[in-house]
Every structure is written in C-alpha cells, then in structure tokens.
C-alpha cells in the first residue's frame, strides 16, 4: 500500500500532530501510516478522507496484487 498522506498534509499545511488531533488518533499512528508500516482501519481511512476532502482511493493506493 502506498499513501499520499505526506503530500496532502503539505498541501493543507498540517503537521502530523494537527492531523492526529483531527483524525482522533496519536501522532505515532500518523507517522506509521506515512512510513507505510501500518494499514489504517476503515474508520481512520474514512476520517482522513473527510479531513482532506478526497476519496479514500486517492489517499491510500493499493497494488493490483494486494487486492
């Protein structure tokens, strides 16, 4: 899984801590997702989609093989 989280944060001028507060998770979780070491739950993915006003598929990109 690849993620555009860092790019979207830069676009909306959010640091990890601010995004974490909006998504109601810890900064560590945001860091794990950005480093692609953790696939977020559907709930967290949905919250990200609302925060960035982007569909989930535009934030988290899966390879064909993973699906």
């Amino acid at each position, binding site marked *: 899984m690849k993620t555009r989280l860092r790019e979207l944060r830069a676009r909306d001028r959010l640091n990890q*801590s601010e995004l974490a507060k909006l998504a109601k*998770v*810890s900064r*560590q*979780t945001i860091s*794990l997702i950005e480093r692609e070491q*953790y696939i977020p739950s559907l709930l967290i993915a949905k919250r990200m989609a609302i925060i960035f006003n982007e569909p989930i598929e535009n934030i988290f990109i899966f390879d064909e093989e993973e699906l």
Partner: protein
Amino acid sequence: MKSFLKIVLALGIGFLVGFLIIELLYGNVTALDFSNLYFWLSILLLLLSVGLIIFVCLTSNILLKKNKQQAKNLNEDDLDRFKYNTFNQLTAASTTALVMSLVALAIQILNAEIMWLIITSGIIFTITVILSIFVGGIINSLYPERNLPNPSDKDYADKLFEASDDGEIHVMAKGLYRSTQLTMTLLFISMVAMILYSIITEDSQVFSIIIIGLIMIINQVKYAKEIKER
C-alpha cells in the same frame, strides 16, 4: 544488530562447549576461584548502575524542562517524537539500573563479607527502585490529556490498551512479541548454561533450573489462554 547478536551467541556457545571439553579432559578448571570474579563483577555492575542513575536524572530533567516550555525551538512533531523516544530510553535505563544493582547486591550478600559494599549496594538498589517509580510517573506529565494508567494500577495492561489507539497497539504488539520470543530463547539458553555449570562445578543449580522451567511453562500457557478464540 541481528548479526552482532548472532556473533555474541556463537561466541557464548563456543565458550561453553570449549569449557566443557577442557573440564572433561583435564578436570582442573573447577579449581578456579570465582569469588574474585564475582567481586569485581559486582563492582562493575554498581558503577554501571550509578552511571545509569546519573543519566536518568539528567535526561528526565531535560525532558521535563522541554515539555514545560513546549520546546520553543522544536516543532510540534519533533517535540512529540523527542518525548516518546526519550521516555523509552529512560524506562530502559532505569530498569537496567534496577536489575544491575539487584544482581550486585545479591553477589555481595551471598559471596562477600565486605559490609560497606553490602550497604552501598543496598543504597544504590533503593535509589534505583525510587527512580523507576519516578520514571513511570513521568508519562502523565508528558501526556496529561491522554489519562494514561499508572504502572501500579491493578488492571494496568487493560487500561493501557483502552487508552491507546490502533497504531500504538500495533507497535506495542510487535515489540512485545519479539521481546517475548527473545526472552524464551534466553531462558532456554540460561537453563542449558545452568545445567552445564552444575555438572562442571558440582554446585547444584537445580532450584534455579526448576524456577526457569516453571516461568517458561507459565508464560506459554498464559499466552495460549490469552489468544484462545472464544
């Protein structure tokens, strides 16, 4: 790190095997006087404990100061990362100091008759206990909004999981699983080492061997019970 540990393990096994062969061939190795070795080992452990106590005191002071100031020169993410990593270092350092001072105290009580060393070891051990409690309590100063449980809480593990989010639990689970695997391996090696030691020195370690065996069994049964599908 992994290859370094492999080398250390290979060296350890090589040493034990070589020692056993020499002992079986010549039988003179048990004439070695370990009391001198234990004495200097306890001194080394005490010095290391003192070093770690100083490290913990200085580092926790820096951490609490930066936390209060909200680290004017650090951005929010870097400050959070600093708090998290520094707290981990403090926990590891205080626990290591506690164990080292306890081992040193045990050596002094069981082997030596030097009263001032026994008293010094006891004082250092007491300081490390107080320090461990202090370090455990720092977490709520760092994250007051999280309402994290105290390590002395009865249901600490359950409350900690409740207060943590998915990502934190993921990190904790990975770390704990790996350290548990390592612990079980090291306990097994300790058991083998104690059996060899008992044979070579004719100083029975049966009690310790039984305790280690019980710990390994209880640990495995507890884990199986926790992950059982209901």
